[in-house]
């Protein structure tokens, strides 16, 4: 057994008690990938959490420096592999801003639909695996059943189910399938009642509420200070969504709400709120898809793709609202065809940094609840 001598606690009668150091991961069923959490425990109470990351480090940033701008797209797919569409979306927006080009309207509409479908798919995984972390296995498969339908839509569009290489700087790799609009409408119609089913099965389950309400409370000031964004920040009660607050693409054309945490079952910013925000966001995404799918204009989706991307000297930080939060790309150009420096500021990487703050004083079982509720993807943490 590893004994941490620094943190030994002395008891009065000459006997010693020690905090137990437990390594959760890198191989563990619910660390959502290869994450290692070094836990310092007193019985089952957590004294300290030290996340160790980097087991999945694939040198994205180093690779990007050796690639031309379009060649980076498949690499960004592999960062947040549950929201690959959105990674591409963010990267394309960043490069377009650096180049100062406008994309045709049809491209924007298709991007938004893809992005929102991807958001639903990603939230379904988040919700499903969260249920599984808490011990309910069945909602997980229900969520995957519905995610499957979205993946089929993507497959219909670009042939790939997970890593798409579909959204390119300046446009799309190719147009949508003629059947896509009808299938998407069918999916929206099919999916809406399933959210209710999910609520019946998991959201309002007494045991689920007991496990998640008042656990891992994140006050809004702390959240901002730690750079928390996306659903996790909104669950803490701040109405902050880059789709509205720092708008990009054509999100300002659509009418949708930004759900914020209200502490319905406990305190604002607890695990249940972070979970429930995602359920509500799926519904908002459906709204956006419904509006966008009816308005797609005709046009060519590849016409604006530059033959050779060679941005002027300069740098840009461009951010989009990924399903997990603020996905920012810092791209520096020295005037050549290869980016000089690409830094991806992934939400998962940032969110994982708050584990220690959230977990202190909770029990071992709560770590799982908290880790699941902040919804990280290790591919993006390690890049």
């Amino acid at each position: 057994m590893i004994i941490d001598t620094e943190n030994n606690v002395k008891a009065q009668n000459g006997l010693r008690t020690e905090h137990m150091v437990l390594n959760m991961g890198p191989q563990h069923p619910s660390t959502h990938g290869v994450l290692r959490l070094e836990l310092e425990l007193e019985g089952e109470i957590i004294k300290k959490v030290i996340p160790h990351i980097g087991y999945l480090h694939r040198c994205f940033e180093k690779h990007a420096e050796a690639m031309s701008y379009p060649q980076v797209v498949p690499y960004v797919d592999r960062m947040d592999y549950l929201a690959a569409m959105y990674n591409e979306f963010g990267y394309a927006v960043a490069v377009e801003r650096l180049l100062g080009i406008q994309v045709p309207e049809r491209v924007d509409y298709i991007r938004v639909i893809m992005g929102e479908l991807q958001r639903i798919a990603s939230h379904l995984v988040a919700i499903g695996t969260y249920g599984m972390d808490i011990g309910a296995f069945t909602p997980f498969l229900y969520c995957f059943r519905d995610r499957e339908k979205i993946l089929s839509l993507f497959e219909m569009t670009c042939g790939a189910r997970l890593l798409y290489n579909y959204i390119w700087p300046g446009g799309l790799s190719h147009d949508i399938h003629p059947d896509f609009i009808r299938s998407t409408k069918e999916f929206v119609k099919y999916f809406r009642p399933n959210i209710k089913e999910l609520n019946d099965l998991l959201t309002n389950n007494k045991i689920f509420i007991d496990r998640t309400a008042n656990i891992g409370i994140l006050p809004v000031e702390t959240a901002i200070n730690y750079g928390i964004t996306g659903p996790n920040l909104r669950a803490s009660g701040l109405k902050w969504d880059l789709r509205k607050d720092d708008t990009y693409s054509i999100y300002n054309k659509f009418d949708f709400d930004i759900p914020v945490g209200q502490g319905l079952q406990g305190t604002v910013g607890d695990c249940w709120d972070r979970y429930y925000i995602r359920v509500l966001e799926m519904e908002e995404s459906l709204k956006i898809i419904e509006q966008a799918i009816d308005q797609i204009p005709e046009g060519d989706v590849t016409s604006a793709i530059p033959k050779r991307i060679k941005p002027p000297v300069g740098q840009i930080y461009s951010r989009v609202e990924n399903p997990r939060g603020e996905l920012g790309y810092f791209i520096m150009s020295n005037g050549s065809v290869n980016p000089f420096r690409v830094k991806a500021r992934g939400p998962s990487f940032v969110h994982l940094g708050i584990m220690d703050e959230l977990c202190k004083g909770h029990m071992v079982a709560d770590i799982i609840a908290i880790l699941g509720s902040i919804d990280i993807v290790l591919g993006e943490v390690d890049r």
Partner: protein
Amino acid sequence: MTYDFFYKLFGSQVVAAIIQGLLPLFVFILPFAVFAVWLERKVSAHMQDRLGPMRVGWHGWLQTIADILKLLQKEDIIASENDKPLFNIAPLLVFIGSYAAFAAIPFSSAFIGSNLDLGVFFIVAVSGLVVAGILMAGWASNNKYSLLGAMRSAAQIISYEIPTILVIVTIVMVTGTLNLNTLSEMQTGHFWNWMILGGPTLGVAKFLMIPFMIIGFVIIYISSLAEVNRTPFDIPEAESELVSGYHTEYSGMKFAMFFLAEYANMFAVSAVVAALFFGGYQSPIGYLGNLIGIKWLIPIEQLFWFTAKGLFFVFVQMWLRWTLPRLRVDQLMAACWKYLIPIAFVNLIIIGLITLM
């Protein structure tokens, strides 16, 4: 009784007793475990919108046998830091604990492993052995997850024995016997003679007792779930937290022993619940054997009813497992000490007062 039959057949008490002892293992527990594992897969699959095993045999019914063959061939891994003797004894002890419980369970009027006068008491006592086995497994594995799982398990099983015993005491108080066979015999006739509907007595007391008997049944069923470590009380092996709890380090046949014990245990507690509250092996609607005058048909019918009742409760356990999330360890303890035990205690007093009437 089967014992007398074997005694006459072999003329030796020892041989008869051994056969009598092994009979439930080979005729009942092993086939049941094989069936239950398959059933669990199928039940979970159909609840989750999938098919479950479909390849091995008709609807995959041979899947468990294939799995057992696989487990038999597996390497038996013992890590160098394990406490070897304890590590090897633990799965045996767990299995013995749940197997021994079957000795006092009356499968039908013709077959009961050992017709003990202290039947229920024996079952409660001997399942206590399981705790020792689990603690040994957790400690001997020398793995922190196993240790945490074992500690949780010990705390949980010991706590939940109290409400179980309180409910059993309630029944014993009403019926005046600890012998499960006698208890089953008392509930003969039709389903309105079952303990859950106030027992075989007649009068106002019977109807007064019904709501409290139902409360008692719910309590004993919940605590039996906790005793066999099923969801929502499966925190000792909570896979998302403790990987696999106390059997993390086990592989091959030793792991299968834990698995077998778990399923045997599931049936054992269901059988006890059925015997206490649902008439044991008694038919709810009378016997076909009585109707057409074939006496030897009755024990077989009884075995059928007993298995059906047991299986029904096993099915409910599975149903719950694939529906509910898992409690946290402190909530689990709170549920036991703050709710179940006080309610069981008040229930005991009220039923006691009704019996006095």
